[in-house]
């Protein structure tokens, strides 16, 4: 068994900022070539800037199968076969169910859940042939606990856990692991949009009494991608300061 990730190739979706950026940076620190994606060309350029010679940013719409195919073939051409897939891209469109629009439900489910189906399916053939692959899906604590105003987001994030377990069973014998990392409240742009009242209510329930850092989530992702985690599959690692113990 190799003990290093040196020279491996990773795709991290939603890597322009926050958790995705921290994941990309920590994978690079392990010697991994990283392609990070963003929805806009500007975001992709920002990723290229911080990755430097260790990878690049690419524009990707995770809800578009053609866009997924295009990015995957670019990666294959430029960097070779994909070893690590981190499905991190996600959006929120919060509202109480009674006020939730169909479009907001569909957008969140498509971007956060169906995208993972789409991308995993597209990388499956290559990983199966090589008998090697690491897939890490970024879920969320609210997929486990629920959260008012986020029926769509909670459904998508809980869906990822089930998806992960099913796929893990399908392909474990081919040397491919599929796991989730489930962050709690992490200091990112996504949680900055919470009101102070919301934050105070959340802090009261976090034994660690603080927000987490993106780097603390990325560390769990890097572990699951590492050779040492080869026997862990279908698992969810919770990174939430004790907010929910499952």
């Amino acid at each position: 068994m190799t003990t290093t990730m040196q020279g491996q190739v990773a795709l991290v979706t939603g890597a322009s900022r926050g958790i995705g950026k921290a994941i990309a940076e920590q994978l690079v620190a392990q010697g991994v070539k990283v392609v990070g994606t963003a929805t806009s060309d500007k975001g992709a350029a920002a990723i290229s800037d911080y990755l430097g010679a260790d990878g690049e940013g690419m524009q990707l719409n995770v809800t578009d199968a053609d866009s997924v195919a295009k990015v995957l073939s670019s990666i294959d051409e430029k960097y070779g076969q994909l070893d690590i897939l981190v499905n991190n891209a996600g959006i929120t469109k919060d509202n109480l169910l009674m006020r939730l629009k169909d479009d907001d439900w569909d957008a969140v489910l498509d971007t956060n859940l169906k995208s993972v189906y789409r991308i995993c399916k597209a990388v499956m053939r290559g990983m199966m042939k090589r008998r090697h692959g690491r897939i890490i899906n970024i879920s969320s604590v609210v997929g486990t606990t629920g959260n008012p105003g986020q029926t769509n987001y909670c459904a998508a994030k809980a869906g990822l856990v089930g998806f992960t377990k099913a796929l893990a069973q399908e392909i474990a014998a081919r040397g491919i692991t599929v796991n989730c990392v489930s962050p709690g409240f992490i200091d990112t742009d996504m949680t900055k949009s919470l009101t102070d009242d919301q934050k105070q209510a959340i802090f009261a329930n976090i034994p660690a009494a603080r927000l987490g850092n993106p780097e603390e989530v990325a560390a769990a992702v890097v572990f699951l991608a590492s050779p040492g985690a080869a026997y862990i599959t279908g698992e969810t690692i919770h990174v939430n300061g004790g907010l929910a113990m499952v």
Partner: protein
Amino acid sequence: MSTIEERVKKIIIEQLGVKEEEVKHEASFENDLGADSLDTVELVMALEEEFETEIPDEEAEKIKTVQAAIDYVTNHAND
């Protein structure tokens, strides 16, 4: 140049790790050759690569025996 039949059988032997004499025409991948559903998916992938063709899912599902694989490739060899 090997015949289609020989090439198909060679792939089956490699993919499923079975012996040549087990690969009879009527042999079913799952019932006789010990393949699981994922093995048959991989077998179809290997056939696609060997014969440089794309086998649609609805056709792939019908390829359950050695003969069915040979027939499919034979019928689509000139596409």
